[in-house]
């Protein structure tokens, strides 16, 4: 009966599929929640950085600190000051200390470190480092009381993500695009490949094929219903994950930049890409008939696609290779930045998934079912 295998697939796999769905939703929605912390400049994390002005002379390496404006608003002029210097923003064991500063300014040169060097490696560090990353802490002292004024660093940094990815992350759309590119495609792609391959190879390996095809079920119908059930599950997975992401973005108050439908669509347009991956997995499953080999081949295919796309993304000289990777045709960037869905890309992937599926059916129909 038509549709029985479709329903059977969903019913027999619902537990595993639901667990994966929950994991994906939690990861995606949770990932969006870290956007505020990566989008804020790193310097703001140094306490009291706004109380100290810093100036670095690139030629001489002289660093001038000035906290006069703090003094005008916060304290009386009877203070003297202590300046602590270290390589890290922690002053428990500073590499330099000056406690006799009377004016609300301080001029520092790296050679001053050597004057009170207790660290034998310091001179080597000073010679090796082209630009020494230093942290300065200023403390006001009056009679017996101490008051922390602030910290600054001589190196202008925004955040670690910016240094790694070369983006300032002020746009949540870029942030979501990176999420898709970096691991969503791999996580969901590999899982779907694994489930798709096993949905067929397990029937071979557990010797069920003879029983299955003792019923009036054609091989084409068998594969079509497997393909449909996996495609349906993927659509549900993407829809629910997209809804969770919309909720997560909304909770950050960032929907001003993006509309809910844009966030939703950006994920849903990956469906045709995953249909191709499912069809490809079914093809290797009916060809190799062994879970281990077929899963290996499917994973290899996905990793190659992913690696080529990633490298081509970073190297302009490899731009020509990009059209040959499937991932290119999930154009989430256009959706996120311009709310435009490329019907060509979607259509191409849909046609490709039908072709690959048709090829899988042909291979299956022409091959022997091993006893």
């Amino acid at each position, binding site marked *: 009966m038509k549709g029985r295998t479709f329903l059977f697939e969903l019913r027999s796999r619902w537990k595993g599929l639901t667990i994966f769905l929950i994991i994906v939703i939690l990861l995606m929605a949770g990932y969006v929640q870290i956007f505020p912390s990566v989008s804020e400049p790193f310097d703001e994390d140094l306490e009291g950085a706004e109380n100290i002005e810093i100036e670095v002379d690139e030629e001489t390496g002289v660093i001038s600190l000035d906290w006069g404006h703090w003094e005008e608003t916060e304290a009386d002029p009877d203070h003297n000051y202590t300046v602590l210097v270290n390589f890290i923003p922690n002053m428990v064991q500073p590499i330099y200390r000056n406690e006799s500063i009377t004016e609300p300014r301080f001029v520092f040169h790296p050679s001053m470190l050597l004057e009170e060097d207790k660290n034998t490696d310091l001179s080597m560090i000073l010679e090796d480092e082209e630009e020494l990353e230093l942290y300065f802490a200023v403390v006001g002292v009056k009679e017996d009381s101490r008051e922390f004024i602030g910290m600054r660093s001589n190196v202008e940094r925004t955040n670690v993500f910016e240094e790694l990815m070369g983006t300032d992350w002020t746009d949540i759309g870029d942030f979501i695009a990176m999420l898709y590119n970096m691991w969503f495609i791999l996580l969901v792609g590999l899982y779907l490949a694994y489930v798709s391959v096993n949905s067929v190879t397990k029937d071979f390996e557990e*010797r069920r094929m003879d*029983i299955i095809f*003792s019923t*009036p079920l054609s091989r084409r119908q068998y594969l079509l219903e497997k393909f449909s059930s996996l495609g349906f599950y993927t659509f549900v997975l993407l829809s629910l994950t997209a809804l969770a992401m919309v909720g997560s973005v909304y909770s950050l108050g960032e929907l001003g930049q993006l509309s809910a439908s844009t966030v939703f669509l950006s994920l849903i347009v990956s469906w045709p890409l995953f249909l191709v991956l499912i069809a490809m997995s079914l093809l290797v499953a009916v060809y190799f008939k062994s879970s281990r080999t077929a899963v290996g081949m499917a994973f290899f295919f996905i990793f190659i696609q992913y690696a080529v796309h990633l490298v081509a993304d970073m190297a302009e000289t490899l731009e020509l290779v990009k059209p040959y990777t499937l991932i290119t045709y999930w154009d989430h960037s256009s959706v996120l930045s311009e709310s435009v869905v490329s019907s060509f890309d979607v259509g191409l992937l849909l046609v490709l998934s039908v072709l690959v599926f048709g090829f899988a059916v042909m291979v299956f129909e022409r091959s*022997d079912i091993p006893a």
Partner: protein
Amino acid sequence: MIDWMVTKMEKEPVMKIRGLTKKYGDVIGIKDLDLDVYPGEIMGFLGPNGAGKTTTIRACLALLNKTAGDVKIFGLDSHKDSVEIRRDVGYLPGDFGMYPDMKAKAILKYLLSQSDVSDTTKMYELSEILDLDLNKKYRELSKGNRQKVGIVQAFMADQDLVILDEPTGGLDPLMQHKFYDLLRKESREGKTIFMSSHILAEVEEVCDRVAIIRRGELQVVEEISSLQEKMGKKLEVEFRDGVDLDRFDMQGVEKVEVDGNRVSMIVTENLDEVVKEVSKYDIMNMSLETFNLDQLFLTYYREDEGS
């Protein structure tokens, strides 16, 4: 040939195999096989392990592509019309698995639904006959009980032709006899049964005809009874004194062997004349033994080993 069999064989064969050949690369699985299975009969398909029984069955059911030949089941092409054919054919594979985490009942209902059959009456009837607990998960069942699940699924959709590949594997002797009774009952109800086996006794017990296959080639197709007749009887006589062996040189007497005063021979015809000739001497002991299928099979098997 007995009358009821003549009637059956006048009908169009349910399964008609002509020149069926299956090669695996250069290795021949079965070669140029011709066989007819008639409606209502129980046909045994006998052969040692690796003779090509399973390959024949699976090629007929389009689980294997054929290299050459033609198979018609209910007049339809076994490969082009395989889906249509399977509506009317029950099949028990020789080696099969099912869904380990599902209850036997759920598995059987699922398979019934694939055949568009909603009536579960026969499923329950068969389970009761075979003493099968349908509420156990497949993984919890013993080998014998798993085989029972297979037998139930082969018969439960009440199809006209049932193909069984080594059906009694894993069944205890008591259950084997229940199964033979089931086969006879199904046959009486008009089902055609094609059953492979390497257990000679069961073919002899339940089958109307037998086809013997060896090294992928069909050796003989005969009714069980006429095959036994053709094979003749083994006469052993112990005489008081020596005898003139030339007296037994007559039509229908073969393989005359002498061991002292003991003489043995195979008699395929003229038994009456042979006994009269024997009676002219003083007889110490005498036995007349009908060949059974076991001996017939071993005859072929030994030839196989000899070759």
